[in-house]
């Protein structure tokens, strides 16, 4: 069976995001970029399924600018077999990405799509759900456990206050949450081997084109600066402040 893993290139999670002076977005000039951490978890899960002999081929796909090839290359070094870049310098909104991914799914015919639950840049948490709807496939979001069998997949989801276990008929879309796994470091020999794997470069037009945008970003602001704390002299004072000022006890 084939697994499709969409991956996104985003600001490295270790880098402190800075807002552009005109507040039009986050400044990405000369900052370190990396694979979205939730996408990394999705790749890891796909690779584990392949290592267990439950999948034959993993295709990593990204929609993004030319350097997104490096992100795909990382997925290849982790164990994906083949890459596909839908190259665009536009920053397409979730629905546009989902529509192109739908066309990719139709061309590639995977039985399972595993992707991050959201990208840490836009925090939209939308593409997986939209893709499932467009394909009319079952979906299981926020997965913390994935068990694959012949015609179905059992997914444990992290929901408020507990866990929910779903059984989905394949083909299906699964989105990965933080605790699904701990992604491996691509080994150095595998980084070298990934050089020899292919990445097809396509344009949005090969997959139905960029859909008309419905969203515009009006303004991005930094979170408010935290004010300095206060020092207390005694435990008793701390308790009294927690009661009277903070009102937490």
């Amino acid at each position: 069976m084939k697994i499709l893993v969409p991956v996104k290139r985003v600001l490295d999670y270790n880098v402190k995001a800075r807002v552009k002076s005109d507040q039009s977005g986050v400044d990405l000039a000369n900052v370190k970029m990396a694979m979205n951490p939730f996408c990394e978890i999705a790749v890891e899960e796909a690779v584990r399924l392949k290592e267990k002999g439950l999948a034959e081929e993993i295709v990593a796909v990204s929609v993004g600018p030319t350097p997104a090839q490096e992100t795909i290359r990382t997925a290849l070094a982790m164990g994906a077999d083949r890459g596909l870049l839908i190259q665009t310098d536009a920053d397409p909104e979730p629905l546009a990405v989902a529509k192109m991914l739908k066309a990719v799914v139709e061309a590639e015919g995977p039985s399972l799509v595993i992707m991050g639950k959201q990208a840490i840049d836009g925090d939209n948490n939308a593409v997986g759900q939209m893709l499932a709807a467009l394909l009319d496939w079952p979906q299981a979001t926020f997965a913390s456990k994935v068990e694959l069998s012949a015609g179905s997949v059992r997914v444990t989801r992290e929901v408020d206050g507990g866990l929910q276990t779903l059984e989905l008929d394949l083909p299906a879309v699964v989105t990965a949450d933080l605790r699904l796994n701990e992604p491996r470091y691509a080994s150095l020999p595998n980084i070298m081997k990934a050089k020899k794997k292919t990445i097809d470069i396509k344009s949005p037009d090969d997959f139905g084109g960029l859909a008309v945008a419905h969203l515009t970003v009006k303004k991005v602001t930094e979170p408010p600066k935290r004010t300095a704390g206060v020092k207390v002299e005694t435990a008793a004072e701390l308790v009294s402040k927690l009661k009277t000022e903070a009102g937490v006890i």
Partner: protein
Amino acid sequence: MAFDAETRSQLLETIRRFVSERLRPIEAQVAEADAIPDEILDEMKALGLYGLSIPEAYGGLDLAMEDECLVAMELGRTSPAFRSAFGTNVGIGSQGLVMFGTEAQKARWLPRIATGEIVTSFALTEAEAGSDSAAVQTRARREGDVYVLDGAKRYITNANRAGLFTVMARTNPDAKGAAGVSAFLVPSDLPGLSIGKPEKKMGQQGAHICDVIFDGVRVPAENRLGAEGEGFKVAMQVLDRGRLHISAVCVGVAERLIADAVAYASERRQFGAAIASFQLIQAMIADSKTEALAARALTLETARQRDAGASVTLEASAAKLFASEMVGRVADRVVQIFGGAGYIADYGVERLYRDVRIFRIYEGTSQVQQLIVARETLKRGG
């Protein structure tokens, strides 16, 4: 093998991340326990670190010297004890075999050295043969199709974990000095081979050195590396290459120390200002940065020349001399910038200060490097 810029940056990025996420958080713990957790050693193996310099045909990465140096610089950003765990497989423990081994010897050992299944050690130094390493007294007597080894080696890195030793021993007692020495591949499980207790060291806790004792160890003749009498040549060529690797580690540790100093000096306030704003502190930062840049440039330039096929005995010794002395000066200044905190274990700087002291001593002391640089410069006429 040389790579394109993208693969190189991916490789270095992976190591940088491994160092900052997995190794740096446990530096103090490793120093305290004098042991690297097995789980971390397994991760290093899985990453491929044990095979950095092993030819691709035997499962290694076959890094060009320049790339190996860049990798060593990244690994220098944490306790050097971590690097020591696989350092012998990359350098002195494996390179004799890579350079002088027969096809059969390589096929037998290198694949397991590349994966880290076998740890290798390099056994040259003896109680009476340190800087004067050609004076080795460990004997190897030929008896039919075996050599019988008797003697003792001292301060051998990773001896307590090694599965295979490259041992320099005297095959011809009549030939004094280098001419009578041969190199052997000696598996650690041969009868008569025993390992001493790990020494208590000044720094780099978690990395171990021990005596290796040979008491009538019967080594198959097919395990001789190179011809009889070539042992010293093997040892010197191995060390030549190792010097660049050590230089790169020195650069990495210096860069780490400078970053620590900048962070501390920017936070620490005295006389109403961050101490980083005082020019006397800035002078220490400027001198450290300048010297670290110079060592980086010398190391990488020499590595590129070596990759291009040039003989770099002089330059590699000069790099090792300069880089190891440089990191000593940098560590000293960084302790000074930290003030009292520089002397306190919790801040980690005093640990690195002790850790880097060895770089001026092993794989040839600074004096030995001076002798080599002078000898080669005199030979070249300038």
